[in-house]
């Protein structure tokens, strides 16, 4: 590292430039107009860094490197081509891959350096492999739950939290011992295996619907383990990339926990043993008004301002393209149509935006909660498609509600509210929604895709458009 050879200097400079490009990359993500430049900057930085590394004079054999790069590309391409609805599980899977890389490198570095590992080096190395291993299995579990390969319901047993915390404590303890006695090489596999197990056990008690929070948190862990790897290899580039990733995951987790009105520690500790709140009995007796696609189409056609609120149900029903047809039809009729997007609508931060953008809805029609809430009082129809909790007025008014205090979309301030869902069933939070019993509310029972399709057919049939 302290060589005076100019190749080394060139490599160092490519890394410096790559670091700057990575920062610019995230900076340009601030707005959809510059975001693609961000991707290009990131790609360029990556290219420079990899090319610089390949110049390294320490590399004696390019064979395995080349094979691995090709293989990685072969795996990467299909992972880049997944359906938009599969993005959450893809993200989880890529956290697993990132963590795997970091863990393997950390393990190799340990065995190359042991037994002469300085204390500080051993501490960051342990952090790298502990965080890396638990992120690896944790992310695989999360991906499995999201892909519905694994059971989505939380599996709990007595003393679970104690077992989990015990495992974490044990691995930290062994790591601390290794820091003091790095010559006890046989201990190293322990700080790999226990966290691998912990990663699994950590996810077992968490319901499938809570995975996005877990993913963001694992995102942050993956970043931190990469930064630790940067400390070990004395690579500033890696430290910066890891810190940026860590910050990103943390901010997304905090955002989500705020938008769900759950305490940050609840999120930070992986929402251990989170329990679903049981539906209160007796509300079935209250009356709701329902309507047919024809009636709904009539009301929409007569409106001058409509706000569509999509939720998880739109995603599972894959209704976004039908929603787009509805949007087109109404817009052509001169109706002002906007979308109100709650930060945790769906099953991933930004999930709704990506789905609607995929269906070609212009992003300037997608307004977030703070932007749209002021507009509901002037709205003729709020059309809710497969969303539930994020529209529940109990969060504003009922202090006994488990979601009390959660910021919601004020759809109940619109003149008419229409809700597309299949039944009177509850959403993620498992609680009843008083919105459905309001006089101004019409329930449109049915699958989101089919029902929106039926409305569009009515609208088109009615006047020959579309």
């Amino acid at each position, binding site marked *: 590292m302290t060589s005076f050879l100019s190749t080394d200097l060139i490599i160092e400079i490519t890394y410096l430039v790559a670091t700057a490009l990575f920062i610019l990359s995230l900076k340009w*993500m601030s707005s959809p107009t510059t975001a693609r430049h961000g991707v290009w900057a990131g790609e360029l930085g990556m290219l420079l860094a*990899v090319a610089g590394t390949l110049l390294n004079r320490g590399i004696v054999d390019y064979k395995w490197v080349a094979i691995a790069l090709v293989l*990685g590309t072969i795996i990467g391409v299909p992972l880049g081509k997944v359906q938009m609805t599969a993005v959450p599980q893809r993200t989880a899977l890529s956290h697993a891959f990132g963590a795997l890389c*970091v863990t393997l490198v950390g393990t*190799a570095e340990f065995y190359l350096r042991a037994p002469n590992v300085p204390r500080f080096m051993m501490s960051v190395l342990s952090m790298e492999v502990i965080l890396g291993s638990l992120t690896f299995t944790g992310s695989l579990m999360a991906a499995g739950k999201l892909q519905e390969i694994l059971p989505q319901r939380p599996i709990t047993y007595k003393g679970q939290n104690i077992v989990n915390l015990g495992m974490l404590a044990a691995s930290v303890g062994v790591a601390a011992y290794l820091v003091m006695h790095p010559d006890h090489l046989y201990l190293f596999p322990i700080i790999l295996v226990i966290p691998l197990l912990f990663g699994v056990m950590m996810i077992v008690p968490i319901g499938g619907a809570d995975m996005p929070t877990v993913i963001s948190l694992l995102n942050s862990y993956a970043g931190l383990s990469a930064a630790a790897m940067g400390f070990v290899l004395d690579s500033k580039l890696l430290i910066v990339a890891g*810190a940026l990733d860590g910050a990103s995951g943390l901010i997304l987790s905090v955002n989500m926990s705020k938008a769900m009105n759950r305490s940050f520690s609840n999120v930070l500790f992986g929402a251990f043993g989170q329990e679903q709140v049981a539906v209160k009995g007796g509300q079935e007796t209250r009356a709701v008004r329902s309507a047919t696609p024809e009636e709904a189409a009539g009301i929409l056609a007569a409106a001058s301002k409509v706000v569509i609120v999509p939720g998880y149900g739109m995603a599972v029903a894959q209704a976004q393209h039908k929603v787009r047809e509805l949007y087109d039809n109404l817009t052509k009729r001169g109706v002002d149509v906007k979308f109100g997007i709650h930060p945790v609508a769906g099953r991933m931060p930004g999930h709704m935006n990506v789905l609607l953008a995929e269906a070609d809805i212009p992003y300037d029609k997608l307004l977030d909660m703070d932007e749209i809430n002021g507009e509901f009082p002037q709205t003729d129809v709020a059309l809710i498609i497969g969303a539930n909790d994020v529209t529940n007025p109990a969060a504003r008014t009922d202090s006994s509600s488990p979601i009390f205090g959660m910021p919601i979309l004020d759809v109940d301030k619109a003149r008419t509210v229409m809700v597309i869902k299949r039944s009177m069933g509850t959403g993620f939070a498992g609680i009843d929604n008083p919105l459905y019993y309001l006089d101004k509310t019409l329930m449109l029972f049915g699958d989101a895709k089919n029902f929106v399709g039926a409305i569009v057919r009515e609208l088109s049939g009615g006047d020959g458009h579309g």
Partner: protein
Amino acid sequence: MKTDLITSLYVFMLAGFIGFEVIRRVSPLLHTPLMSLTNALDAIAVVGAILLAGEHKSTLSTVLGTIAIVAATSNVVGGFFITDRMLKMFKASRSPKP
């Protein structure tokens, strides 16, 4: 070693500040692509893996390094690819089509 530690801590702290400043300002519209982008950037760990696999210091390190390259490269390729795909979908509204 100690100076290295301190230097690395500076870099980590400064990058952390930048991370918070920059990412707090990412539009909520783009939180999903943000995740896949940071994922791709994070896969810069491939650089460490390349050195391991290429320096061939021991069989273990070569094997682990090679697997690590595969894992990281798939993140790089897949991550940038899907991020760009998603971002391409985000279009501003234009005058309505005829």
